[in-house]
């Protein structure tokens, strides 16, 4: 029997609600369900019971498609790249950039790589001190200037230090910024021009809703993102923002932050996300 239009729509509506309640942005839900609809157009099924399962399978595959676009093997990238590899971390305010850098340093340590951190958030109260505590606990060098200094200069110094001391990875922490603030977006572009990072990592918040698309798109247009890290998934957020971000910028989610500890960083997998979305 052909997939009846009405049945298709009813099942899709149910699934759309699941996605929306999981914080997948509405335009992304629209595109995914449109894709499913066109794939199922006029498809013939053997039994009546197959319909719901068939639609769900098609939806899951569409979602996997979004989440596996332009894949990046982080470990492989670090292993093969000429040293020092420069990683720059960007995103809006409070998403978890600084804490994520500490976790990545731990991750790299566990794999035998040495790191240098650049305190390029020279604006926010306590930002440099926050990194000071992390770098001391992790036993890695922190390159910092005085508060209010030039973020690009700090990043430059860190890269030079890493080259001189044969360190493997430079991690540049930047200030949170609203994608609507032109001056701050220009500042970020300048840090990129000066530091020439090999990886631009967008750090997002799993708790974010529809604005995740606008935020990530604007950052991507400004500095071209390599991949994203989504934090605070332990807060019980379903994390549909992962889908929103991946769809908006066409780049992979590299890791998920699952807590405040240095080990609370999990490599992202599309299957894990699909299971999380559909219970």
């Amino acid at each position, binding site marked *: 029997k052909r997939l009846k239009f009405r049945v298709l729509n009813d099942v899709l509506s149910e699934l759309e609600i699941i996605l929306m*309640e999981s914080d997948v942005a509405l335009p992304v839900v629209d595109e995914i369900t449109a894709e499913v609809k066109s794939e199922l157009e006029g498809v013939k099924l053997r039994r009546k019971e197959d319909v719901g399962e068939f639609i769900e399978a098609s939806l899951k595959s569409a979602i996997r498609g979004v989440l596996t676009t332009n894949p990046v093997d982080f470990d492989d990238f670090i292993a093969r790249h000429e040293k020092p590899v420069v990683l720059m971390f960007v995103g809006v*305010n409070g*998403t978890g950039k600084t804490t994520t850098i500490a976790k990545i340093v731990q991750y790299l340590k566990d794999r035998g790589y040495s790191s240098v951190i650049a305190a390029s958030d020279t604006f*926010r*109260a*306590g930002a440099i001190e*926050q990194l000071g505590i992390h770098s001391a606990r992790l036993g890695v060098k922190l390159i910092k200037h005085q508060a209010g200094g030039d973020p690009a200069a700090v990043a430059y110094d860190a890269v030079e230090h890493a080259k001189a001391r044969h360190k493997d990875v430079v991690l540049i922490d930047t200030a949170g910024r609203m994608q609507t603030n032109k001056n701050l977006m220009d500042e970020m572009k300048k840090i990129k021009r000066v530091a020439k990072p090999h990886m631009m990592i967008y750090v997002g918040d799993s708790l974010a*809703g529809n604005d995740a698309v606008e935020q990530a798109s604007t950052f991507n247009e400004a500095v071209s993102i390599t991949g994203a890290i989504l934090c605070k998934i332990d807060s019980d957020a379903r994390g549909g923002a992962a889908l929103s971000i991946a769809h908006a910028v066409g780049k992979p989610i590299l890791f998920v932050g699952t807590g405040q500890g240095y080990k609370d960083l999990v490599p992202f997998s599309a299957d894990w996300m699909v299971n999380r979305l559909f219970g």
Partner: protein
Amino acid sequence: NLSTSLRKTLKKIANYPHIDKDVIREVIHDIQRALVMADVNVRMVRDITRRIEERALSERPEAGMSSKEHVIRIVYEELVHILGESKEVPLKKMNIMMVGLYGQGKTTTAGKLARYFQRKGMRVAMIAGDVHRPAAIDQLRQIAEKVNVPVYYDYDEKDAVKIVLGGLEEFKHEDIIIIDTAGRHALEDDLIDEMRCIFEAVNPDEKFLVLDATIGQQAGPQAKAFNDAVQVTGVVLTKLDGTAKGGGALSAVAATHAPIVFIGTGEHPDDLEHFDPPRFISRLLG
């Protein structure tokens, strides 16, 4: 004469409110999408939509109103109803406890509130009650210095209740004491307990839930958890200088029965504004 009276009649008929069901359904569909994109809770959108549709089809539009305006007016009323009574934070001696999820803007907002009350002529002090986040004390001290307000802190004390009680004792002659606490979420029992312990030891006059305008569907459940522990008395919606609409705030208000008292519009101590329902709603509806 006939032509004048005919013209009068036609004019009267043109002003009769008439309800165009198709237009109404279309406008409601657009509003539904706008609310979802504004991060209003999905179930709440369904409930609101049902009420709006019932009212739109059963109530007479006001004279001269188009079908579309008729619906918008009803939507507006429904959203204002959810937002509840607005509240002006009283200018009296009080303790304010800041609570909320990670990175929402509690510490930054504490500084904004300090400046706000100081400008109103009150004596303000702050307490560094976040014993977990690296350099939380340094952050608050730098903010306190910027707004010229004393701050109580202890780098070696890991018991948040002890710090807060110490600060309240030190500042007992101040008017407004703002207590910063650590970020936490609903699933962290030990941290929810810590927050409840501070609340029970201090019994603060105001408990402000600080909420990021970008928050999605988790706003309601998280706000409820915070409210169950400390009885929230006000919501501060931050980061409205971005593009987020802040629909999660509706769920927070519904869960806590507390009004939105202020909004945050930037990173500096001056970036605090009173909550303005009409502006918020028109932004919500895009």
